[in-house]
């Protein structure tokens, strides 16, 4: 049974269908998640796609992070579900405090779309373990607010703990500090990436096939993790709310803990869930 990856559609998400296509091309099963539906429908991993959620008229991702589905994703991510935020998704993850730092307006103030060379950094993540450390890859970037910033201490910490998963080489396209193109969280299950791997999975439409490895990585991570994807999905489906599998590289899967978390989470939502029913 193939791995099930959920792709969230917010109002204004643009690369959602591309992410779905990429997952499928790489051999996974993609499920589309709706921003207003808190259920994760038993997916094993989640992708927050690129685009302009809610028009990005406020800070990018600032509104999307409050979508009902984000509650579930945040909770699941804290328990180890692999989550990849691409471009706007990266911005949402930062806004949701699943990743440190922020993405601000490109230094040159222009939107920029080009085929960008990257150097892979940390491969200790659910989304980069199929790469070789230091691998030189080409992935398209396209963003207007892709300049990664954080205070020096955070940056030092990211580097010290090997949490930079990719850096721009051959020219920094947006002014990101220390050429950072993507980072991961401490446990490696949550990754934010400014470039668009979903646009580098098809020879016909992409500049390379390097993007495939991001998706293959998560399949590998989920298949390998103790408890694996099957167990995780079973638990999630059984619960009906789909918190998903815990399959971080650390591979900790505690169904009981998830259950408690879930009930408390929905307890907090109280009225909303009652209304929904």
């Amino acid at each position, binding site marked *: 049974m193939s791995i099930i990856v959920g792709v969230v559609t917010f109002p*204004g998400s643009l690369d959602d269908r591309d992410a779905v296509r990429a997952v499928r091309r790489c051999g996974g099963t993609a499920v589309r998640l709706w921003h207003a539906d808190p259920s994760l429908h038993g997916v094993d991993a989640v992708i927050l796609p690129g685009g302009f959620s809610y028009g990005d008229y406020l800070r990018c991702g600032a509104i999307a992070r409050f979508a009902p589905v*984000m509650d579930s994703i945040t909770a699941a991510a804290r328990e180890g579900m692999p989550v990849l935020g691409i471009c706007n998704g990266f911005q949402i993850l930062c806004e949701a405090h699943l990743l440190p730092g922020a993405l601000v307006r490109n230094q040159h103030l*222009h939107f920029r779309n080009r085929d960008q060379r990257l150097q892979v950094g940390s491969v200790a993540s659910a989304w980069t373990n199929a790469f070789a450390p230091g691998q030189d890859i080409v992935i398209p970037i396209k963003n207007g607010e892709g300049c990664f910033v954080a205070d020096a201490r955070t940056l030092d910490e990211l580097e010290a703990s090997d949490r930079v998963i990719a850096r721009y080489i051959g020219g920094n396209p947006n002014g990101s500090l220390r050429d950072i193109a993507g980072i991961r969280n401490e446990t490696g299950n949550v990754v934010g990436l400014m470039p668009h791997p979903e646009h580098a999975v098809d020879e016909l*439409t992409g500049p390379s096939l390097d993007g495939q490895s991001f998706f293959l990585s998560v399949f590998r991570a989920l298949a390998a993790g103790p408890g694996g994807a099957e167990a995780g999905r079973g638990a999630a489906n059984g619960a009906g709310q789909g918190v998903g599998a815990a399959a971080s590289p650390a591979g900790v899967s505690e169904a009981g803990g998830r259950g408690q978390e879930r009930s408390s989470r929905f307890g907090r939502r109280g009225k909303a869930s009652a*209304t929904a029913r």
Partner: protein
Amino acid sequence: MSNPEITMDGPENPQRDPSRRTDLSSALAWRRSAPSPEPATDPRREPTAATADSDVEPDGYTEPNGYAEPNGAAGDSEDDTWTPPEPWSPPAWSPPAAWPPSPAEQPPPADEPRMAQQPSMVDQPPMAGHPPTAEPSPTDLADAGQWYVAEEQTEWPAAQPSVAGPQWGAVEAPAAGSPRPGVEPLVVPAAQWAVTKPETVDEAAVPAPTGQAWPPPSMVEAHVVETPIAETQVVEAQVIEPVAEEDLVPADVDAADMVDAGVVEAGVVDADVVDAPAAYLEASTVDADPTVGDLTASDGAPGPYERQEALHVATGQYPLVSREPATLPADGMAESSVDGDAMTPPPVPPEELPPIDAILPRAEGYREVGFDTVHRSLATAAEFQPYRELGLEPDEYARIKQILGRRPTESELAMYAVMWSEHCSYKSSKVHLRQFAELAERIKAQNAEKGPRSDRMLAGMGANAGVVRVSDRLAVTFKVESHNHPSFVEPHQGAATGVGGIVRDILAMGARPVAVMDPLRFGEPDHEDTRRVLPGVVAGIGGYGNCLGLPNIGGEVVFDECYQGNPLVNALCVGVLPVDKLQQKAANGPGNVVVLIGAKTGRDGIGGVSVLASSTFGQGSENRRPSVQVGDPFLEKLLIEACLEIYDLNLVAGIQDLGGAGLTCALSEMAAAAGQGMAVNLDLVPLREPSMRAEEVLVSESQERMLLVVTPENLPVVLSICARWGVLATAIGEVTAPEAHGSGQLRIWWRGEVIVDVPPGSLADDGPVYARPMREPFERELMKVDRPETLPRPESAAQLRETLLRMAGSPNLCDKGWVTEQYDRYVLGNTVLAQPEDSGVIRVDEATGLGIALSVDGNGRYARLDPYIGAKLALAEAYRNVAVTGAAPVAVTDCLNFGSPEDPGVMWQFAETVRGLADGCAELGIPVTGGNVSFYNQTGGNPIHPTPVVGVLGVFEDVARRVPMGFSGEGDAIFLLGQTRDELGGSEWAHVTHRHLGGEPPAVDLAAEQRLAGLLAEAARLGYLTAAHDLSEGGLAQGLTECCLRRNMGAHVALPPDGQSPFVHLFSESSARALVSVRKGQEQAFASLADRHGVPKNALGIVAGTSLVFDELFEVDLDELRRAHTATLPALFG
């Protein structure tokens, strides 16, 4: 026909007994309607609103949108002294045939008698959604002529069920009043709304939405009953309480049903339903503080909409969007409630009340209501109207009066002004554009001779965009349009909304937009205006297109002095649709509901087409900025998704985008296309600025709006889909059947008055047509003899090298990466080729590999030298650009940019261009499927070069066979295809090195183009080619530069020894040429294939190294070449 005014009654409410109406009631009605900009009255509400003693008629503006209360409060006793105002006498608006008698002779004739006999007329406000019709009520039918009786018998019964279903019935009682199905009240299912609302939306959000759109009267009244006095203050919030709703709704439904069925007498119904409202009315009129009056709705507390917004921001969730698709139909009303909020009309200050003594002498039955109405136009026939300021000529104005049989109202005048503007009516170009329609016939005839071949074209000229079938299942629609004038005035928004507009055109055909392209032309690159305009335009296109999620796959960036004051911003969009989802704009089906979806209407773009697009720039053009629209790409994205979902479910009977001329254009075109009429309550249009006047609402070009026609049964689903996507949707009217004179009438109500009553065809189709004088500009002879052969040419190798580098870095030939990097070319994941490739190539069907190629090209300098040849050259280049990728060209779109048509020289250029294009297309056998004309691109006496921009669409059976332009295989053989002649008239070389424009453009040979295209397509299919690139501006030198730099592969070439000088070989711009690289080992096969196709070929050399080497001449390192090629734009624009 007898005078209908006398026999007909206004829209009668069967539930009401006219005799019960009193002056007081009329006065109240008027008071509410005239002073307050509130949404129009809802006749259907009347029954509920009527007072218990039935003496007071609250018809006026009751709560159509939930504000009724405030108005009611305003009904102080002074008003009671008013004589019943006659909002309008429906009879007067019957078929135009009846009117022609000039208003002067026929003063609202019906008024007097009617007033006396039928006070009820006063009260008949159009239904909340629906205008009262001119038809007699059932009760009056006895008096009416046979004509009406007959109509009633045939149509009336049938219409009832469809409109007054349970959902509708709840809101609208008096449906029976209108004989025509078309006039049925437009209502939203109140019951559903009330029930589902709480579920769909968070508690906080609930109150907000309901408010205005259609606060089901029942709800309003329910509330009223409970708190008769307090309600004035908090109208909206309270209205929403679903509390007593359930109880009331059934009652209403019953009443309506009974009435519909003709079972119950009006009086009986009144008794049932009217009690509560009556109480309310009295309470509010008498007890409420008069000063609160109209302002109640905005008395400090946040309006429902504001609250909703706050909620939205706080939760990051659209209140309306929380539902699973599967359950959608159930909560259709949710979104209408939102509409309601959105459209809360602004309170009207009391001082705006029309003065009592404003009643004009001759209008006995007519009373000033503060704005121009049809009634008023009859009463004030001689009133001066500023038609010239609106861009109408005296004879056009006279024609309008002739059509209407009276002077137009202000709103009608505004509508005719925009619809008869050059931009909308094509009045100067129509006589020439007919050639494109004839072209289709010419091509069909040709094809018939060649043998049976299915016609690819599914929709052509006249549709929003041409539609071409590309497979059994799929069709492609594409069109290019101009947005020139707005983009000069306000580059960012002008360009952005240009993209938005063309995307909606494509959407309106039923297609998912899949890509955009942008041919742009600016003045001198180093001019300060260009530095302002270009970055703004590029950012606008990028900002809008990127946020919309459409890849930008190509276009042009051209600089020429002539565009200094008139930059050209054209935008092309292409969409893909299943053949069976093709949408039409005809508003068929009387009784169907007209739904406006998308953005609220604001004051942006007022008169854009007439003020901006149809005049030349002179002093003070910065004052026209308000005529430029403002775009919201996020909303357009939601609009696209909502529309596509609606198409998927086959819920649309007709759809049209709102672009130039806004609502006016959409309403009149949709009605005219179907030969039907429409009844529209303009008060229901959600407004961004509540103080807008009717004519502003009608001509506003606010972006991101679409007009749908849906059947009443489908309405709830459509509304719920829009709600899920957070898109406002409002039922504003309905389609009405043709009238006695054979065609429909477009009637628009505003504040309860009829302000527009016109034959839609007169707006949409019967605009003036001018055969403007034409004269070949005498300067053309002078230019012709100013031949480029007289210019000094580079001869030595060093000079040639220097020229090549200079050309490669010239603004028109340099790398446009600075521009194109600001566009997203990857989104949607189907972009196979994008700029700087010759064509944009999109995969249309992942399963089969079906794909399309698109190219847009034009050369104003060629067209200036010879418009006929120039048009053919533009066509040839676009055709060739598509062909080099390996696609088969199948269809054409065009955007014709010219100076003022009032200049005979410009008109001649235009006529020649159209002739050239039509001849060219006929020769190539591909139809023009649609396009756009942009005149008045002229500053003072200086028109731009005639600039036909031609877009050609090509089709790939398998897009994997596409041929890119960059050399890629070391050792591949390079061939030059086609014949090179000494043709430098209008060339880039002459422009760059001598600022020269003269002589004749390159010869055009479309037969040679066809042979070349045939060769390229076959070679691509056979896999011979590794690269192919069209040769045009800049000639071979530029072609090699681009082929080498694309993938950083050098070339070693030797110019053909055919007698031409190296200079001519390098820089001539002869047409029908291409550069290809052939896979190693297949040179012989390719050469013989070229022979077979009759295409001249020259083996130039091979792909090799990292420099461009011209044997025995010079060598340029690719790095040096790249620096020259790429540095230009960043240096100019940062």
